[in-house]
């Protein structure tokens, strides 16, 4: 039997920061700052102006990477939720919660930048196109995920309940996409930007955007996880007294 008590293990787990974690976090932050600067420069000077859409098309270098991160973040929630239910380890719950919060931020960015582009190009802010509809539903599902977390004070229950919602919500997304496609099948979407038609400079800029936003996601995620650990430490101090 190990000699150290659970309480001391909990203290270790809840330690606000380790040197390694801080270094990793700073690394992600630095990479994100550099790559986002490069992305901005490329988006404005390297990528050519779209012949039909004009300068507004450049918002895609933010819009598409945000959409990618929105999806990635929720895939992480899904995997972390399964891992939590399988192991019961608190770190998976922290990971899922952090990723959901960051994911909601990026999905919100998608839902804001989309209409900003849609208005000048399509002449409308919103259309019930399958992708738009799916992102709106994704956003709503994960908002309900965050609301649920706020409504369960006991940590174990909160972790279990939100893990179940994280699994159900993610599995629901492809079905939402399918139903949104069939639903509007009478209005086929001719606005879809196909990657194959893009000039190489645009494609490269888009890929840089995806990389830069992935660094940004990792940075925000590590900050958010630190907040979760600090909160746990505060909770422990509360209990210890």
């Amino acid at each position, binding site marked *: 039997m190990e000699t150290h008590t*659970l309480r001391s293990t*909990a203290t270790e787990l809840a330690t606000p920061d380790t040197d390694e974690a801080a270094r990793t976090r700073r690394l992600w932050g630095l990479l994100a700052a550099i790559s986002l600067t490069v992305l901005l420069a490329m988006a404005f000077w390297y990528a050519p102006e779209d012949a039909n859409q004009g300068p507004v098309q450049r918002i895609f270098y933010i819009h598409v990477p945000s959409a990618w991160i929105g999806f990635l973040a929720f895939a992480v929630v899904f995997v972390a939720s399964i891992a939590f239910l399988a192991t*019961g380890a*608190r770190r998976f719950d922290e990971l899922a919660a952090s990723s959901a919060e960051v994911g909601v931020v990026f999905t919100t960015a998608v839902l804001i930048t989309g209409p900003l582009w849609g208005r000048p190009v399509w002449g409308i802010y919103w259309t019930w196109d399958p992708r738009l509809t799916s992102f709106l539903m994704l956003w709503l599902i994960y908002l309900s995920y965050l609301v649920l977390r706020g409504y369960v004070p006991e940590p*174990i229950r909160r972790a279990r309940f939100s893990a179940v919602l994280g699994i159900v919500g993610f599995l629901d997304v492809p079905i939402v996409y399918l139903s949104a496609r069939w639903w509007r099948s009478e209005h086929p979407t001719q606005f879809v930007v196909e990657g194959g038609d893009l000039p190489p400079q645009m494609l490269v800029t888009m890929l840089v955007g995806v990389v830069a936003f992935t660094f940004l996601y990792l940075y925000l995620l590590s900050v958010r996880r630190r907040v979760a650990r600090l909160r*746990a430490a505060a909770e422990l101090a*509360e209990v210890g007294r």
Partner: protein
Amino acid sequence: MDAAPALGISLRGVTKAFGAQVALDHVDLEIPQGSFLAVMGANGAGKTTLLKTIAGLAVPTAGSVRIAGVEMREAGPRLRALIGVVSHETMLYADLTAAENLRFHARLFGLRHPREAVERAGERLGITPVLDRPVRALSRGTRQRVALARALLHDPAILLLDEPFTGLDEAAAASLTELLEELATPERTLVVTLHDVVRAMAGPRRLVVLSAGRIALDTPIDTGSEAIAETYLGLLREEARR
């Protein structure tokens, strides 16, 4: 392994924690068949969690709960058939009659003769006259008897009671003490959580005191019960100071 398949309870390194909250902290506890064990401790010391872990309502973060040598995690439904649970809430549907509640639970337990089981449990607890009244209309003490009848329907080898004296008047409490004494046969294992040390001295033959999820005291109750009560109160005072 034991020669006889004794219906004892065995907890090894049972921990129930989530980050900072530690309800049970590496609890090792052997409760042999025929025990009559009282579990005490301050609020939040882990008494209810301990019972819930044995009853399969709570899954330990680490460690193992074995009943009759079988791991709870692996054979939950089969082991739960051996256990009767009385919680400090009645687990009864207030709008159904006592008999309807009992018959429902008899079916849930898959008893072969539900009606006979209900009659037997009713007679044993002296609630036959009120069986056809809705639970809502019964007094707290009578409800507690119905709750006990529910837990005894399948004649469980292990009986877990969580604060069964809460809200009972003196007469009801006295008859509950009597009933527990009668149920404490060498075949049956009784575990009861209490918060009144006087109750622990009237019946139970062993006392375990939990403090912050750990066993702070484990002692037989035979002679010198005043000394035990004194030790227990000392523990509580010490905890209050911390």
